[in-house]
């Protein structure tokens, strides 16, 4: 009989209210006794019903205490104190492909922030609140955020007028959005190295003299930085709970604080992209005539019809044209590209068209590493993606990996075979293609012998070639590859 600790998810250790366990492909949350009233009150609330119905809160149900026994022997639990005595077990619905803020375009971080504030305001109406406010509480199903951390919710003291996660919301949501917009810092550079976001002083140091005096830098960075010395001088008294006599006044203050944060968030809402290195790639590409592009589209559609997928990974998806085709064919699509602006635009269009596309800023040649305590809090992209997709698209991306990143062709195909459960739709671009020549930068000699025979030989250890076509008269070839059972 295993104890809950043996199934405990490695990332679940920070919350004092309980932890997550994974067993038999299901996800459970163990809740310690002192937090049970908080959880039960929320699960029975109108806010829970509203947010679950809208798909914005992870569906959760409590388990019958009799169902606890198959999971562990209660007596085997390591109890440090009465605060870690187990009180309740709930089961959560799972999000198919977890993603993290280091992989999101700014639009998705904004969306996670908006969901957090909207939930906090709804909870306030029912005498509850959020005890933390980090984007890690939100996962995305397709382009839609879903709040997953049940233990973030607590019953609030009606006389308490302080929202303790106020600064965390600014550090992990507002300041990264500000850094992205004002200082062009990509979110991956922030979240891969700063678990708890940015300190106001970090951006204050980067701001110009005039910028420091104008909102949003003034309110988010300058004033907190100027107040810091005064705050530090107050010592621990600063962290004493502030209570007001009138509960209505406390509620009004909290509501005003939350609305103030919502206003700041709206001011930092990412605008539409002005174009980027890759954004006009498909429109301006000299590689396809309209007929050739139509032929490519037909090949992809026919491949999806021949092997209807439930899940698709589109690597180097650019504007997500082929992701959209897969999503319209009924697949759940994870679409990755290194360009945050393209992924932001794809997020917008997927939301607007209600397409099941999760756009992530991932450079497949340097995929998101595992990070956090013992490198176990956020698993790497490859850990999450390996074997998770029925179909993998490698369209107009292999030559970039080959030339720009110097990855050997056999290694690219081996990686593709690890990502897919069945099918790869690949586009081989030969050295005579104008786009291939454009990225060579004088390295022609390295790829002199490269042709379709080389490509097919590299496929051989991992895939059967189901069919292939040449795209018009170009030096581009499309392949439908089926993974070998030992591949």
């Amino acid at each position, binding site marked *: 009989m295993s104890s809950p600790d043996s199934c405990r998810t490695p990332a679940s250790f920070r919350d004092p209210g309980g932890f997550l366990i994974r067993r038999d492909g299901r996800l459970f949350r163990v809740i310690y006794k002192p937090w049970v009233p908080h959880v039960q009150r929320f699960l029975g609330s109108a806010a829970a019903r509203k947010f679950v119905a809208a798909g914005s809160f992870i569906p959760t149900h409590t388990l019958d205490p009799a169902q606890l026994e198959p999971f562990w022997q209660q007596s085997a639990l390591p109890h440090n104190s009465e605060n870690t005595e187990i009180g309740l077990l709930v089961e959560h619905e799972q999000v198919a492909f977890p993603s993290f803020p280091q992989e999101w375009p700014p639009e998705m971080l904004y969306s996670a922030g908006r969901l957090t504030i909207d939930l906090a305001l709804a909870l306030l109406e029912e005498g509850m609140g959020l005890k933390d406010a980090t984007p890690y509480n939100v996962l995305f199903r397709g382009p839609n955020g879903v709040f997953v951390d049940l233990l973030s919710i607590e019953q609030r003291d009606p006389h308490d007028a302080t929202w303790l996660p106020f600064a*965390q919301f600014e550090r992990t949501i507002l300041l990264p959005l500000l850094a992205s917009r004002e200082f062009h810092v990509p979110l991956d550079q922030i979240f891969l190295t700063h678990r708890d976001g940015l300190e106001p002083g970090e951006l204050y140091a980067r701001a110009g003299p005039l910028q420091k005096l104008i909102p949003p830098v003034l309110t988010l960075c300058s004033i*907190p930085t100027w107040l810091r010395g005064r705050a530090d001088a107050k010592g621990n008294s600063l962290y004493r709970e*502030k209570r007001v006599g009138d509960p209505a006044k406390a509620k009004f203050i909290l509501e005003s604080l939350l609305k103030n944060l919502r206003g700041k968030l709206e001011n930092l809402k990412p605008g539409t992209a002005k174009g980027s290195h890759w954004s006009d790639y498909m429109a301006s590409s000299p590689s396809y005539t309209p007929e050739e592009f139509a032929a490519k589209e037909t090949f992809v559609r026919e491949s999806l019809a021949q092997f209807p997928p439930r899940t698709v990974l589109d690597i180097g998806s650019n504007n997500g044209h082929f992701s959209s085709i897969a999503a319209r064919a009924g697949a759940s699509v994870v679409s990755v590209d290194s360009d945050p602006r393209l992924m932001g635009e794809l997020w917008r269009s997927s939301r607007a068209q209600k397409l099941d596309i999760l756009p992530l800023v991932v450079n497949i040649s340097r995929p998101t590493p595992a990070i956090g305590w013992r490198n176990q809090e956020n698993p790497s992209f490859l850990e999450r993606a390996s074997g998770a997709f029925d179909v993998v698209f490698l369209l107009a991306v292999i030559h970039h990996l080959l030339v720009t990143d110097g990855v050997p062709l056999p290694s690219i195909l081996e990686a593709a075979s690890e990502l897919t459960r069945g099918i790869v739709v690949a586009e081989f671009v030969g050295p005579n293609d104008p786009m291939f020549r454009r990225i060579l930068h004088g390295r022609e000699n390295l790829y002199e012998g490269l042709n379709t025979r080389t490509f097919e030989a590299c496929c051989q250890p991992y895939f059967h070639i189901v069919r292939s076509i040449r795209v018009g008269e170009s030096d581009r070839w499309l392949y439908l590859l089926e993974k070998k059972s030992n591949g």
Partner: protein
Amino acid sequence: MRVLSVRRSIAFARVALRGAEACCTTVLWLAAFERDAHAYVDPGSGTLLLQGLMAVLFGLLFYVRRFWRLIRPGAKVEEEKNGVNRTEDQ
């Protein structure tokens, strides 16, 4: 009519008293009515102090709104029409 006027004057005086109390509270807010906070996340330092100052301002606004509603009873209706949340008065 006279009774109504007296009642309003009493209510006015009560709100004025509460306003005075609010001013005192704002001064004492950062020091009084304190007990240990059970922070699970880092509440910051400069940002927490800023939040406290904002809370003081919103606390004052709370009484200003009450006062405004008392001298302009129609304001409550107008605010409701404008979708302003008034649950703090309940």
